[in-house]
């Protein structure tokens, strides 16, 4: 469904963030992208919706080639890709409802969005989503009044109300405490299952990646060095992705979690 072919990104400074990445994400798959800081995880997902322009290579979403789209076509393609951010990236001075409805901006004309006159179906869907994440009593709160976990839930609603086929998730838990992190990851996982969404989740917490993703891709210096199931992350593999370290503790903990969950 999403296919990257020989994707290269070289920044103006000369840094090669992505060196010919080939990757295919089938329908409904939740994939975690792990790797050290600077491996190119963020660049990769931003190339998909062209917040960062790729240097060369092709990106296909179903049959649409994303890298050659005009501005207008790109806007229509972006509606199909919901994005969730590390620091939530809510517009802080807008209300929760406005933030969620901003996910419909690609679908409504300017005057409707300017006067906040969204179609009733959009408003219904916004209430449904907010109820789903447990925030329907907070619609008129300003985004900067919410806690981190609440903000991220609003961010998830904003992405989902786009009615996307694909979620691009950039370090969703990096600013959250461990418990909230798990809740957010679980929520993303459940919502992807409910709506049959594919997702690429950038995450540097290996444990969370193993717990919540069905496939793990390890990126190192712009190259894919691992692509396989979560339980294939052996100490050798982790050393290959991150460098030398004692990985036994990380891995054994995952098994404990699974037993707890079962």
């Amino acid at each position, binding site marked *: 469904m999403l296919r990257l072919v020989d994707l290269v990104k070289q920044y103006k400074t000369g840094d090669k963030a992505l060196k010919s990445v080939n990757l295919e994400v089938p329908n409904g798959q939740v994939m975690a992208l792990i790797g050290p800081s600077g491996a190119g995880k963020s660049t990769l997902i931003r190339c998909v919706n062209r917040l960062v322009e790729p240097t060369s290579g092709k990106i296909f979403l179903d049959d649409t080639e994303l890298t050659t789209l005009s501005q207008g076509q790109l806007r229509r393609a972006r509606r199909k890709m919901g994005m969730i*951010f590390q620091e939530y990236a809510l517009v802080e001075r807008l209300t929760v409802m406005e933030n969620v409805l901003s996910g419909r901006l690609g679908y409504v004309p300017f005057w409707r969005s300017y006067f906040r006159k969204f179609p009733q179906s959009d408003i219904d869907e916004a209430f449904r989503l907010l109820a789903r994440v447990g925030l329907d009593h907070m619609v008129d709160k300003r985004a900067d009044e919410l806690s981190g976990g609440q903000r991220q839930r609003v961010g998830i609603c904003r992405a989902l109300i786009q009615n996307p086929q694909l979620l691009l998730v950039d370090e969703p838990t990096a600013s959250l405490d461990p418990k909230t992190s798990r809740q957010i990851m679980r929520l993303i996982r459940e919502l992807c299952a409910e709506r049959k969404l594919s997702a690429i989740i950038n995450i540097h917490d290996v444990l969370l990646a193993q717990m919540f993703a069905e496939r793990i891709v390890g990126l190192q210096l712009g190259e894919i060095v691992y692509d396989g199931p979560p339980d294939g992350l052996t100490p050798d593999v982790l050393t290959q992705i991150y460098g030398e370290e004692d990985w036994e503790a990380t891995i054994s903990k995952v098994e404990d979690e699974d037993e707890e969950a079962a």
Partner: protein
Amino acid sequence: MTAAMGTGGRQWKRPPLIKSPLLRWGLVVGGAAYLAVVFGTMDVNWSRVADGFPRGQRFLASFFPPDFVSRAADIWEGILESLWITIISTVFGILISIPVGLGAARNLAPRPVYLLSRAILAISRTFPEIIIALFAVKLFGFGPFAGFIALSIGTIGFYGKLLAEDIEDMDPGQAEAVKATGAGWFQWLNYAVQPQVMPRMIGLGMYRFDINFRESAVVGIVGGGGIGATLLTSFDRYEFDSAAAILLIIIGIVMAVEYSSSYIRKWVQ
């Protein structure tokens, strides 16, 4: 272990701003010398200053008591005209400075638009309002229209520059997130940029209103209409008590704007 470290403690000093001690002390000494020379060449005639004190006192005394009554009709008319100039030049200036300010924000505008907008801002800030007013008076004749033009141009330079800088300082994360939804450019402005800059811009609008009111008095003195013209007339007629009344009214209005602006700014935050 602590004992061992106590004896051979390593020295630490905050690294100086300017590395070379020669340059550092050279700048200090040079600066002091320059100030001394400047003061030395100012050439104040102290006996003239001593003479001046009683004269200044007499001048100030002639302001009291302020006379609000004998020229009340003129003062009232002048104030109304000044307020009119202030309001429309503030509104008009801000309306024009929005597109110019958007164009002058580097993170929004393409390079040529950026350079053009910055040029417009630079030019309109180069000339003080009073120079523009002199020019406008020559162009349109005496009266409030000249004052309105002068203050509008001043407002564009001020407000456009600060708007552009506020946009350049906005949080790119929020802007990126709204762009990622597939929003159009105007929707993006309305949802991502406007909420971030609005409170500050409302505060600056109030501040510019305040400046324009004070400037309208200055601009009036060169023929731009308003309370400045009334003030000039009263000085010309040696009616210092009426002039004092006008000054007090200006102070009162500026203070009223000051208090209400800090209240409004708190409210819009």
